[in-house]
């Protein structure tokens, strides 16, 4: 009781310090944001323009949505999926197949709804199967490493490793390149999905269960929330997020190929590792039970900001990958040192 009163009477600076102590990594991230921002304003040309900020959020949206899906998996204590980009690529191939050929029946060709449903179904199926194996007691890393090879193999086999094109105008343009109130649709989806995920995690029964199972598997099992059903649900959520990103990306490019999301894609060489990096840089505990999708979204925007600044400064892909890698290692080490002995660790 006395502690509460004392806390209320504390001066502002002490409260600020207390806030810093409680949320160390979030605070470090916010201060890094500020430093980056000020540096960008003074030393980078064309930084402080609305177009540039739109570009940053648009970049962040692509891997941010996938990272929000992955946050559910991480929070529930199942580490992460190594099959993110393969899931996305097979869903993209499915969507492009539907848009181009209608899966064999010419009536359905170019039907947005059918293609979208097919892509989401593929995502759900792959998520459920991987989640089933993990729930049975398999290690998530090894299972999804195997799943990645199988998904990529099937996707490449199905598309003959060719680029599948479909021509404009098509029904999916509003998702790929359209915009609403000045922001691209993918950015709006990112914002909506982030808000929805935050509400689900904080204010629903299911969200609290995710935290419970992640923080303490034994306690979860004792209270009747086994990791088996939880693993299936969170893996499905993550795979559906991947499918959605794939659909949006394919709708933008008007084409799909089985290795769209691998080495040559984006800044950092590998979509899977970039998404995992986003979750980690945001400061979520990889052991589960600690973190939020808000942190993940901030992490996505932060990585996009750093990347954007390095592009504007004229760096090649090598230094940019080193930058993202250093950010991950830094955030892991800082988090590990500060969380030593606390609940957030093992």
């Amino acid at each position: 009781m006395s502690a509460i009163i004392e806390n209320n009477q504390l001066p502002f600076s002490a409260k600020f310090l207390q806030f810093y102590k409680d949320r160390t990594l979030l605070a470090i991230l916010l201060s890094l944001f500020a430093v980056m921002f000020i540096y960008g304003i003074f030393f980078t040309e064309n930084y402080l323009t609305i177009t540039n900020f739109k570009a940053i959020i648009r970049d962040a949206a692509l891997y941010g949505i996938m990272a929000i899906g992955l946050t559910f998996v991480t929070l529930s204590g199942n580490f992460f999926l190594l099959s993110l980009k393969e899931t996305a690529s097979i869903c993209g191939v499915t969507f492009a197949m539907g848009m181009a050929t209608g899966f064999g029946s010419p009536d359905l060709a170019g039907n947005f709804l059918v293609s979208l449903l097919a892509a989401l179904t593929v995502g759900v199926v792959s998520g459920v199967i991987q989640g089933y194996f993990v729930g049975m007691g398999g290690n998530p890393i090894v299972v999804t490493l195997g799943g990645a090879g199988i998904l990529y193999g099937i996707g490449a086999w199905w598309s003959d490793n060719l680029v599948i094109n479909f021509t404009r105008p098509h029904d999916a343009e509003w998702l790929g390149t359209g915009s609403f109130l000045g922001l691209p649709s993918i950015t709006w989806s990112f914002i909506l999905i982030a808000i929805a995920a935050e509400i689900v995690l904080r204010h629903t029964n299911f969200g609290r269960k995710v935290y419970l199972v992640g923080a303490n598997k034994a306690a979860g099992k004792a209270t009747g929330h086994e990791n088996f059903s939880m693993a299936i649900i969170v893996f499905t959520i993550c795979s559906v997020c991947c499918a959605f990103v794939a659909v949006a990306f394919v709708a933008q490019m008007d084409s799909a190929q089985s290795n769209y999301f691998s080495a040559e894609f984006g800044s950092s060489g590998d979509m899977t590792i970039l998404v995992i990096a986003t979750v980690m840089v945001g400061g979520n505990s990889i052991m589960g039970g600690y973190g939020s999708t808000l942190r993940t979204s901030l992490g996505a925007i932060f990585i996009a900001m750093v990347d954007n600044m390095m592009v504007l400064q004229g760096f090649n892909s090598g230094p940019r990958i080193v930058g993202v890698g250093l950010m991950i290692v830094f955030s892991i080490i800082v988090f590990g040192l500060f969380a030593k002995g606390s609940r957030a660790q093992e």
Partner: protein
Amino acid sequence: MENFLKKITKDVDLSFAILLSFCVYVFFAINIEVFFSHNISFAILERFAVLGLVGLALTICIIAGEIDLSIGSNAALCAVIVVKLTDPLGAPLAMIIGLSVSTLIGATQGFVIAFIRIRAIVITVGTLMLLRGVALLIAEEKTVMLTDFRVPDFITTKVLMYFSPASLTVIFIFICVGIFMRYTKYGREIYAIGGARKEALTAGIPLRRPMIIAFALSGFCAGFAGTVIGLKSGTAQGLGLQYLLLAGTVAAFVGGVSILGGKGGVLGAAIGALTVNFLNTGLVFYALQVHFVQLFTSVLLVIVIVFQTMSRVFDSRQARKSLLATIDERKTSLLEKKRSALGR
């Protein structure tokens, strides 16, 4: 010989590995005429020089209860360094530099893991990206090439019909690591922190030393694999060699390691790597595209995981059953005693 048989029958996973590799070999030997020949055996051993090392690296890490995801990047970095330095410095010096860099990276990872007490998957995802970036930086985003392609001839000449200097060195490394893991204190410490970490730490085993040794060994093996690939092909890329992680994991798991740690060994790693090699070499004859090789390798991994999980579930059920049976036995014997005492 009897000892060997006893060991195999006792270890279910190892006997399953031997059975699996035998099945794969026989399948290809029956279906492909030339598969059972001297030249193909030489080719398999040549591939073994690369894959066996990666499998060994992952096996050591998994025995220590951790998994090293940065193996592909580490190998790529070493390959880039070796290929780049071979021209100005000569192959032996370049190899020494590359291998020491890889070993140092592995040891640093082990130190960080033991110092912060963090899980290895967390930190190695970070280093996966970091090392890839460093490799790209060193290669200047280009494909590095040897100018004189005769330089690496010394590791590919045929010796004794089946071997080349590369595969002989790899077999030598396997034997050394096997003796190290089995008969030295340091090797047993790695098993101890993998199998039962809390108990080992309570018993006074330090966490840092075995962790650093395990990751340094794995870094060395990954670097050596990268060196062999780089010198053999004469080229190296910063973004290459990422497929090694999948292949190495399959080799390690076929060889009978458990993800829980403390189980498996060098013999298993060799058998697992050979199985993957049989599969890869056999698929070459069907002239399939690359993604099919990946598909079949992953299917192999899933088969092994399912087998391991099932055998674990089966084991725990058996243990439960036998426990219940002994309890029942004791109960009935006690009841009988009671009855006889009352009856008298």
